[in-house]
């Protein structure tokens, strides 16, 4: 049995895999942040429905949700160089796709994919904010942008927090596909290492442990955040203490 399955490898693989962890984390975090920014923009377009822009985003969301992320990674990996070629041909410029770091393709594909999903729960969270809050901000003279930034987003954030956590977990796991774009993350690194001794099964178990650990860390962080933003349970901040002044 020792020849078929070596459980010690599961753990001894992990230190070697760690050298690829920074790439996985980098792709996760950057794509996540971009997906939130784009998701927020798409959510605002969905709410305000400006002409043309609304149709474009509706198409984008429908397309993104209707195609697998793996296919989208291929599309960006092959599509962006094609677009550059076309631009060069059309305007006589001289962009060269081979100078684009391959991680960029992964970042674009993953963030656009996730943004389509995020836009939906961000929209729901923004629409859950009580109209009265917006009117109050309006009445004290705040502009639309100030109201969005100071009142609407902080309140929508509380509602969206569980979904934000889910989105980050999904993103961390989706990064395992970036080898398609020639980015060597932990999954790709694991495959390369396992190629040396053909111990693929042990390697995939090691990878599972690492992804699981990442997920547990993320969900712990979000559970803590959720507790912190629940305003009603917060401890009262004593700014002025009547009894102290009397003394």
């Amino acid at each position: 049995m020792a020849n078929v399955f070596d459980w010690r490898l599961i753990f001894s693989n992990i230190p070697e895999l760690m050298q690829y962890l920074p790439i996985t984390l980098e792709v996760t975090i950057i794509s996540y942040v971009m997906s939130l920014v784009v998701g927020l923009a798409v959510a605002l377009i969905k709410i305000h429905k400006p002409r043309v822009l609304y149709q474009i985003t509706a198409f984008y969301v429908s397309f993104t949700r209707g195609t697998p992320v793996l296919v989208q990674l291929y599309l960006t990996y092959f599509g962006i160089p094609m677009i550059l070629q076309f631009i060069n041909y059309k305007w006589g410029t001289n962009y060269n796709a081979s100078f684009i770091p391959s991680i960029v393709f992964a970042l674009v594909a993953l963030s656009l994919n996730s943004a389509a999903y995020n836009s939906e729960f961000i929209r729901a969270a923004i629409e859950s904010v009580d109209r009265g809050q917006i009117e109050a901000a309006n009445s004290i003279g705040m502009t639309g942008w100030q109201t969005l930034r100071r009142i609407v987003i902080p309140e929508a954030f509380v509602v969206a927090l569980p979904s934000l956590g889910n989105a980050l977990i999904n993103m961390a796991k989706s990064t395992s596909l970036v080898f398609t774009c020639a980015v060597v993350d932990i999954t790709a690194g694991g495959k390369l290492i396992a190629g040396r001794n053909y111990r693929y099964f042990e390697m995939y178990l090691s990878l599972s442990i690492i992804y699981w650990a990442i997920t547990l860390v993320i969900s712990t962080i979000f559970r803590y955040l959720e507790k912190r933003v629940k305003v009603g349970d917060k401890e009262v901040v004593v700014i002025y203490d009547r009894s102290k002044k009397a003394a």
Partner: protein
Amino acid sequence: MIEVKKLHKSFKKLQVLKGIDLTVNDGEVVGIIGASGSGKSTLLRCIDYLEKPNAGQIHFDEVDFDVKKATKGDITYMKSHTTMVFQQFNLFKQKTALENVMEGLVIVQKKSKEEAKKIALEYLEKVGLLDRAGHYPSQLSGGQQQRVAIARALALDPKVILFDEPTSALDPEMIQEVLKVIRDVAKSGKTMLIVSHEMNFIYDICDKVVFLEDGKVLQEGTPRDVLINTENDRIKQFVSKVNFVERYVNQYSI
């Protein structure tokens, strides 16, 4: 100070305001009464520009415009010099009482944080809630929330404060604490418009009462003229149905 002429407002096909004329002088406390759906709240909301009126003239201190041709500057002027106190308080849920009052001072009036805090604490003291400064709205009673909302409006020192049924969402015990605060504001010489069903209170603190019916002004005059000496049958009928008893009026003078 404010002169509104022939103000019209409709929501889709529903005409709510059908040509309102209203004059409010500096330091005046004007009560707006009438049945539900008569357009009282809409009138206030149009003055605060939470709703865009469809037609009419507005003259408010430095601006004088036809609402159909209102410029951005006109609207900003209206918004920044009027502040509303809402029926549902509408305190910012994610901010403490203190932060609620500071918000407009810091973000709109661009005051420094220290200065804003000083002003905010001063106004929270005025409404008797200094010891609740660090509480979130969800940790305050309805009456306390409304008092914070009044402090938030006062702190910005607008030319006019608009009260839109400020006590309608409160239980009877809390109504008094809020009315007392509003009364203090009225005494301080602030120009105010109040929509309320608290007839005794309206009678007591207002310089002028306007009775709206179906989007039009039916009668305006002193509280005595409108509530007691009116010749109008519709107003007589209205007053007889609300809790207005002249001899109780003085009890409300806290």
